[in-house]
C-alpha cells in the first residue's frame, strides 16, 4: 500500500492537493478581510450608520479601552468560567445518566418519552424558571448551561452505547466478562469518537445557556456586556461582545478538534 519512492505523477497529484488547500485558505481569509474592509469603509463614508452597526476600528478602539482599564478580562473570565463549569458538569452528568440508561434497558424505556419531550423543548424556555429556583448568581447561570446541553449529551451517548457491536459484547462474554468490564473495556472506549462529536455540539450549547442566563440576570460576563450595550444603545459594546464570543468559541472548538486528532488513528 505505502510506496516509498514517490513517482512523478504522484508528486503532481500531491502538489495539486496542496495547491487546492492553499487556495481554499486564501479565499477564507480573503472573505474575512473583504468584509472587515467593506464594513470599515461603509461606516466611514456613512453609507451605513456607524452608531447602529459600529465599525471594525471602533470595536478595536473600544476593545483596547476595555482591555486596559481592566474590565474586559473580568467579563471574559466570568463567562468562560460559567461555560467551562457548565460544560464539564453537563458532560459528566449526561455521561453518568447515559451509562445508567445503557445499564438498565427497563429504565431507558420508561424515561424515553420524557427525554423525547425534553429534547424537542427549547431549553431556553426553562431558563427563567431555573434562575428563580437555583438563584440569580453564577449557579443559576451554570445550571441553565447544563440544562441546555445535557439532553443532547444523554441522547447521543446513550445511542452510541447501545449501538456497540453485539459480536464484540459476545466476545467479551465468552471471556467471562462482567457488565462493568464490558462497559469499561468496550462500550466506553468504542464511544470515544461519538463523545468527541458530542462535545463539539455541547460546548456550543453551553455557551447558549450561559449567554441566555447572563441576559436574564448577571452583573458580569459577555452576555451582560451585550445586554448592557443594547440598553444604553452603545452598539460598539454589543458588537465587541459578539466578536469576542465568536473568537473564544472558535478557539474552544479548535481545542476539541485537536483532541479528536489524537484519536483519529483508529476512527478511520
Amino acid at each position: 500500500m505505502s510506496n516509498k519512492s514517490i513517482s512523478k505523477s504522484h508528486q503532481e497529484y500531491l502538489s495539486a492537493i496542496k495547491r487546492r488547500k492553499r487556495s481554499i485558505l486564501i479565499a477564507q481569509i480573503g472573505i474575512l478581510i473583504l468584509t472587515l474592509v467593506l464594513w470599515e469603509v461603509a461606516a466611514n463614508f456613512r453609507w451605513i450608520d456607524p452608531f447602529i452597526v459600529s465599525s471594525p476600528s471602533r470595536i478595536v478602539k473600544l476593545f483596547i479601552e476595555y482591555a486596559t482599564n481592566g474590565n474586559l478580562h473580568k467579563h471574559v473570565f466570568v463567562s468562560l468560567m460559567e461555560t467551562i463549569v457548565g460544560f464539564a458538569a453537563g458532560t459528566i452528568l449526561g455521561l453518568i445518566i447515559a451509562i445508567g440508561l445503557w445499564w438498565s434497558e427497563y429504565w431507558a424505556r420508561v424515561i424515553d418519552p420524557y427525554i423525547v419531550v425534553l429534547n424537542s423543548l427549547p431549553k431556553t424556555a426553562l431558563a427563567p424558571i431555573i434562575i428563580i429556583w437555583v438563584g440569580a448568581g453564577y449557579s443559576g447561570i451554570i445550571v441553565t448551561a447544563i440544562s441546555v446541553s445535557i439532553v443532547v449529551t444523554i441522547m447521543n451517548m446513550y445511542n452510541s452505547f447501545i449501538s456497540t457491536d453485539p459480536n464484540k459484547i459476545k466476545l467479551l462474554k465468552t471471556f467471562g466478562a462482567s457488565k462493568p468490564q464490558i462497559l469499561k473495556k468496550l462500550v466506553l472506549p468504542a464511544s470515544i469518537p461519538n463523545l468527541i462529536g458530542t462535545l463539539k455540539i455541547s460546548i456550543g450549547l453551553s455557551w447558549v445557556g450561559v449567554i441566555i442566563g447572563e441576559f436574564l440576570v448577571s452583573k458580569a460576563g459577555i452576555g451582560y456586556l451585550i445586554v448592557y450595550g443594547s440598553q444604553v444603545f452603545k452598539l460598539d459594546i454589543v458588537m465587541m461582545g459578539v466578536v469576542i464570543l465568536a473568537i473564544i468559541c472558535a478557539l474552544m472548538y479548535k481545542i476539541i478538534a485537536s483532541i479528536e486528532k489524537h484519536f483519529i488513528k483508529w476512527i478511520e
Partner: protein
Amino acid sequence: MDKAKVVEIKDLGITYHTIEEETEALRDVNLDIYHNEIIGVVGPSGCGKSTLLSIIAGLIKPTKGSVRVNGRLVDKPLNNVGYMFQSDQLFEWRNILNNVLLGLEIQGKLDDEAKERAKEMLHSYGLGDFIYSYPYQLSGGMRQRVALIRTLILEPDLLLLDEPFSALDYQTRLAISDEIGTILKKEEKTAIMVTHDISEAISMSDRVVVLSQRPGTIKKIFDIKLSCNKERTPLKSREAPEFRQYFNEIWRELDIHV
C-alpha cells in the same frame, strides 16, 4: 476411540421466542467429541449452527438437554472454552499486543509472564513486527491470526469457530485455514468449526457433521479418512483421492435446492 471425551451434547433442543413467532432452531442433537478432534459442522443457512456454538459456549441456555465440557455442565461461559467469530472482532483502539491480552485482562490473569508469552506467540506466528501496530494496519489474514492467538493464549480445552474464514478472500482463506488447521493439530486442540464451505470442512476436520434444515438435527456424520502421503494438513488433504467422494456425498446430504 479411547481418547478422553471433551464435549458431551445430550438431547439438545432450543426454541427461540420473538413477538412474531417462535422458532425451533435445534432438535435432539446428540454428539460426543473427543480430545484432539476437529469437528466440521455444515448445514443450510439458518439451521442453527451458530446457535449450537453459542449454547456450547454458555452464551445462551438450551430449552432442552444439556452440554458438558470436560464433564462440567455448561450453564455460563467457561474459561476453558474459546470462541472465534466470522470477523476478527479486534478492538481498533488497542494495539495488537493489547488485543491479544484482552481475554487475560478480563479473567484477571494478566502479568509480565503472560505478556512475554503473548509476544512469543506473536513472533512465532509471524506477527513479530506488528506487536505495537494497530488493527487497521494489518491485512485480513493477519487480523484473523491475531484473533486466533487471542483465543489460544487462554489455553482453552475446546475451540469454537463460527465460519472463521468467511470474511476473507479465497486465497487468504486457503492459506490461513491451512495454517490454523496445522496449529490446532500441533497444539492438540479440540475444536468445533462451523463453515458453509464443504471443502474447508473436509480438509480440516476429522469428522463432518451435517445438519438438516431448521429445526436443525444431525442428519449424518462423516468420518473423514484421507490417504495423504506423510502428514495430513488441510491443503494436502484437498489432493487426497477420497476428497471428491466426500464432497459429493456431503453435497448430496445437504440437499440444497435453488
